[in-house]
């Protein structure tokens, strides 16, 4: 077992453990900080998949943007939070926690089952890639390759997503603005 | 409809009649029950008189008498074969005495319930249904039918104890019910197993016919309970042995053997007097009857292998029951434990696999039927008057109730095996049979017989001690003058109920051939079936 495998396990454990703690903890603020750890750990995992640029983007966008937004929203809506948390609903349709757990567990087991039965035979394209040697190696310059492809091959989706992002941000700003006539 | 069917379903008709009559006529219920039970007794006596003692029965249909066989349920189950259930009844030497005994004890029980006040309609209707079920059990030759009657018997008893019983009646009824149900559920498993192992050679279908189950050639080769080439095992135990043990367990609960006896004292103590009479007089006999009719006849090979253990259980029950009876302070509980002891003789006799032992066991069953019914009735007499049964609360009853004391003394001495009464013949021949077993090479050692005879000594001890404590000496009563006034001597009804039972015990003790003559052919037949496996 090499050091990178150990590190991988360490990151995986950190990610999973923090995620579990995240969903089981009551205090939302702490949960959000746990999310921070999860995201970092995930970024670490991306590194092991040889996606260094993704990892950096993850940290920049998520940790720098999304998380800040979340904390911001949390602090804005904190007033009756505890009260709401303690209320137990007996509504007919409501899914209790353990049922959610059951569902998730069922889903997880299905996925694990399929992964494990699948891992014996890789998809065809992976095998051809392995044969042709078109596999990303740690020595490759990922950022350069990505930038190159964004500007050539994926230029249209890139532009669309840029516009989409702008629309979303404008929309968000519009929604959350103070209603003058409300 | 033959005589046997009429005998079985007569009480059902009575029950329907009772249910149909309006409650304003509730005074007539007991008369209806009485008349029908009397008719039943007359019928059973007629059958006794018509019975041909030369026919053996047991495993040959030609040996049975008053046979009725009507196809009942016929279902084609496709792959599973054809379902074949018959209404199949008949009697041989083993069931005849018990049928006569049952109709007699039922009559006693009606006599004992003469003054029932609480919901009379339900009471007598249940009693009659119970009566039907009991008769059915003794007559059924189809295992499914047997099982149906067995279950039908349970329910009325549960209600009779649970509604008309004493202080802890619900507890006792529940205990009784669960024990018996456990037995019958186990029995059902084996019944199904046997059903799939046995094929009716005439029709080629699987069958519930008990007689066909007794013939090794009817078994499917390699089937679960098959005779030959059977390598089925359950947890490493051969399948036939398991089947035998499970069936034995089911009936042993009824007998009851130690350590499956704990329902009995509770059920007896809490049950009302008439139900105690039925419990002791008839119900316990179903266990012994089942062991002979079902366990031994269907599994003769296993019977020959296991009789050492059965005899040991019998001896254990005898001594253990007797010692427990010695420790009792409640009169009814003492008699209940004495039942355990006396029924141990039945098991010892059956297990001895000798003609003497088997006949003795059957005789003991009949004798115990009369005597325990009388004993419970006598306890009921005392309880009716002062609502107390605690032995130390009474003393010197002989002075104020001389007739009662005389009856009690007769019943006690008859029960402890005084010659001239029936219990003596039963116990003596069980002991003789158990001693003879070694000479017959059936594998029951003689020390067991000696152990069993210790039970005779102990039964004398607890009966005499009770007699001394309760009836002799200067009169001293817990309830003082009030009790003295309440404790009147036996009235005519009570004498009428008691006298025939004790008289029969005496008659059977003096003329045992009344039973033995009808029994011999069956006993020999049964032993012949088992002999090849010894």
């Amino acid at each position: 077992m090499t050091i990178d495998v150990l590190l991988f396990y360490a990151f995986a454990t950190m990610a999973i453990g923090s995620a579990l703690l995240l969903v089981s903890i009551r205090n939302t603020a702490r949960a959000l900080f746990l999310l921070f750890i999860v995201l970092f750990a995930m970024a670490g995992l991306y590194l092991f998949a040889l996606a260094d640029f993704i990892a950096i983007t993850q940290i920049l966008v998520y940790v720098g943007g999304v998380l800040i937004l979340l904390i911001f929203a949390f602090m804005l809506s904190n007033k009756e939070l505890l009260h709401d948390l303690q209320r137990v609903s007996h509504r007919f349709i409501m899914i209790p926690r353990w049922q959610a757990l059951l569902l998730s567990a069922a889903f997880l087991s299905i996925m694990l089952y399929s992964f494990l039965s699948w891992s014996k035979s890789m998809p065809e394209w992976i095998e051809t890639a392995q044969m042709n040697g078109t596999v990303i190696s740690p020595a490759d310059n990922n950022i350069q390759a990505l930038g190159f492809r964004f500007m050539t091959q994926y230029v249209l989706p890139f532009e669309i997503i840029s516009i989409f992002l702008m629309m979303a941000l404008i929309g968000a700003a519009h929604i959350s603005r103070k209603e003058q006539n409300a | 409809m033959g005589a046997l069917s009429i005998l079985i379903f007569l009480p059902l008709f009575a029950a329907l009649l009772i249910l149909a009559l309006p409650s304003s006529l509730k005074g007539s219920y007991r008369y209806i029950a009485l008349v029908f039970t009397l008719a039943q007794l007359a019928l059973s006596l007629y059958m006794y008189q018509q019975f041909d003692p030369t026919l053996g029965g047991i495993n040959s249909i030609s040996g049975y008498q008053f046979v009725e066989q009507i196809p009942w349920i016929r279902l084609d189950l496709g792959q599973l074969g054809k379902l074949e259930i018959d209404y199949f009844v008949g009697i041989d030497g083993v069931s005849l005495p018990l049928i006569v005994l049952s109709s007699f004890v039922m009559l006693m029980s009606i006599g004992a319930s003469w003054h029932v006040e609480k919901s009379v309609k339900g009471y007598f209707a249940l009693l009659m249904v119970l009566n039907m079920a009991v008769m059915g059990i003794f007559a059924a030759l189809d295992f499914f039918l047997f099982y149906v009657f067995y279950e039908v018997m349970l329910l009325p008893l549960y209600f009779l104890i649970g509604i008309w019983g004493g202080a802890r009646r619900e507890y006792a009824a529940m205990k009784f019910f669960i024990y018996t149900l456990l037995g019958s559920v186990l029995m059902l498993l084996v019944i199904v197993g046997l059903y799939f192992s046995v094929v009716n050679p005439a029709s080629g279908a699987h069958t519930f016919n008990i007689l066909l189950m007794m013939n090794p050639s009817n078994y499917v080769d390699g089937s679960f309970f098959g005779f030959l080439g059977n390598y089925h095992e359950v947890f490493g135990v051969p399948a036939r042995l398991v089947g035998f043990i499970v069936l034995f367990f089911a009936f042993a609960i009824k007998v009851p053997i130690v350590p499956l006896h704990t329902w009995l004292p509770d059920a007896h103590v809490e049950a009302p007097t008439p139900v105690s009479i039925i419990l002791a007089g008839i119900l316990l006999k179903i266990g012994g009857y089942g062991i002979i009719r079902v366990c031994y006849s269907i599994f003769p090979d296993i019977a020959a292998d296991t009789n050492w253990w059965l005899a040991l259980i019998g001896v254990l029950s005898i001594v253990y029951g007797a010692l427990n009876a010695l420790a009792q302070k409640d009169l009814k509980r003492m008699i209940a434990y004495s039942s355990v002891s006396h029924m141990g003789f039945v098991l010892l006799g059956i297990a001895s696999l000798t003609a003497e032992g088997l006949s003795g066991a059957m005789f003991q069953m009949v004798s115990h039927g009369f005597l325990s019914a009388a004993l419970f009735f006598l306890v009921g007499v005392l309880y009716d008057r002062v609502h107390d049964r605690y032995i130390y609360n009474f003393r010197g009853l002989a002075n104020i109730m001389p007739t009662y004391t005389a009856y009690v003394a007769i019943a006690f001495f008859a029960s402890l095996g005084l010659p001239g009464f029936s219990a003596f013949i039963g116990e003596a021949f069980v002991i003789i049979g158990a001693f003879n077993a070694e000479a017959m090479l059936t594998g029951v050692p003689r020390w067991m017989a000696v152990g069993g005879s210790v039970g005779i000594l102990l039964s004398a001890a607890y009966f005499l001690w009770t007699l001394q404590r309760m009836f002799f000496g200067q009169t001293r009563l817990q309830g003082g003058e009030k009790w003295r006034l309440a404790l009147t001597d036996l009235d005519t009804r009570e004498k009428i109920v008691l006298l025939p039972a004790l008289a029969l015990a005496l008659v059977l003790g003096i003329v045992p051939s009344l039973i033995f003559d009808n029994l011999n052919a069956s006993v020999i037949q049964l032993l012949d079936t088992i002999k090849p496996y010894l």
Partner: protein
Amino acid sequence: MNISPIVASLLVVVLPFSAFVIQAILGRRSVSGNVALMAISLSSILSAGCVFFVVWTGEATLERITWFTIGTKSFSVGILLNKLTVFMQLLVCIIALPVHLYSRAYMKGDDGLHRYWMYLSLFCFAMLGLTISINLLQLYIFWELVGFASYLLIGFWFTRDAAVQANKKAFLINRIGDLGFLIGIALLYAQVGTLDLVELFGKSGFFSTETAVHDSLQLLDKNSAWITCAGLAFLLGAMAKSAQFPLHVWLPDAMEGPTSVSSLIHAATMVAAGIFLLCTVFPLFNETVLLVITGIGTITAFSAAIFALGQYDIKKILAFSTISQLGFMMVGVGIGAWDTAMLHLATHAFFKCLLFLCAGAVIHEMSHVKAHTNLTFDPQDLRNMGGLRHYMPKTFLCMLIGALALSGFPLTAGYLSKDSIVVTAFEWAASHGGSYFIIPAALILVSVLTAFYIGRLVFKTFFGSFSFREHIAAGKPSLHEPPSMMLWPMLFLAACSLFPLFGVQPLAYQQTWIIRGFHVEVDYPAQHAAHLFIPLGLTIGAIVAWTVGWQWYVKQKYPLRVDNSWVQWANRQGYLNELNDTLFVKGTLKLSDLLYAFDRYVVDGLTKLVTWVTQRIAVFAYWVDKHIVDGLVNLSANTTYYIGHLARHVQNGQLQGYMGFALTAVILGILYLIIK
């Protein structure tokens, strides 16, 4: 009369039974005892005239019918008349008759008199039936019925605690013996396959002068272990019934019954049934069993004689004396000379019955004194008596004859029979040699002791001065001879206790008609010297014993203190009762209590544990049911509900509900794909 012996002997048995039935039906209306008396008189006449004299001088006869059949074996009942059985039957009748007469006066005025006559008839029926049974099973039945009658009679005064305790004890200890008997029967049946005495031992029973004993016995190896066991089992039966050590403890207590009953049942007849049984099955015994019988007999004879020395109750002395004499008879059987045992049985029956009746007369009068003078004392206690010969000389005479017979003085019947046993025992020992001489030596010692204690009884009762003389002198004399109804039976028995009834020669026991009639061959040589010296020695010993007794009790030169520990020990019967009580009675009760606790707490506890566990499981199952199964059910129900009401409820506004539902659908879909 021209009745065949079979019919006559059947009548002998049936008459008392019909008396019993008649009296049972009449109940309180029959208190005179005429019915019982008539029955026993007729029985006696029939037994003597039509049975005994015919069979004793003629052929043994038998008659039997099949009683019932078990399997292929038939059990018969019937009557076997040979010398032994007719002798025994006659003896019972002859003893029972005077006792019946005596009882009329003795029991007069008792509250439960009707029961007394009923029980007495029942006893006579059972005892007479016992004597002539052909089948061991039949014998056993009567054997136990005799015990039952004895139970009823001992507990006749059922309001007395001591009487009720005593009858329970008697029945239970007899039960032990009965078990032995039953086991013996069962073993014999298992080994031989029959219980018929004729099939077993031949027509004339053990009297067989016929050379061929029946086949079935020859097939048997008498020395096989099981036959030894059977023999010992029969011995156990006889030990309980004949009150042999250590099963003798019931007999002294049985004295709680009326004295007339003691005289008939517990002295003359029933207790002799054990000896009778041993004589009946005698051919079964091998050397080992016989030796055991001899040993038990000797121990009994000796220990009972010792205990008799320490008693103060007049009846208890006689009870121990009975036990001791029964020990003598046992020895007689054990040494193979059962004819001497039967001879002693007969003579003992007469003189012991006589002694009891005399004692009864004394007690009767003492009770009168007690009633008249309003004193409280025990009318049976020797220490309260004395000097009675002045008041009741005829009773004194009878008692004296009885005592002399018991001591074995010449010219009495006791001399003949006792000498016969001791002499034969000596011959037996001489042929075996060595330590076997302990037996005759012990018997001689016991004879001397017997003479001493019976002398003590006579001296303390009839000599000296009466303790309550001043009380009776003041009033009218309430102490006198018993009524003639009591006196005549005593005189009759006194006559029977002398030698002429048994043989014309007063000193030679071989010449008695009983010994000659039984005609037993023993396999050891006669010692002629012994026939001279032993009777002489015994007589001298008895005379010395009486002289010492005279010195001690009449001349008031009593050398021992009252609280002497040996006397105490003998008085308390060697503390055997206490030992039994703690060891067996308390032990059994403790065991039964223990087992009951075991039953309550362990066996029933297991049931309860199973119930409890089942309940817990049920509760758990209910919890599972409520929270998991029902949750799933609810879930699926909800799903069904959704699907069922999709049109209306597809939008219920529950965001997470939607998601859960959607996800469930997805999962189910994937599952379907996987499974497919």
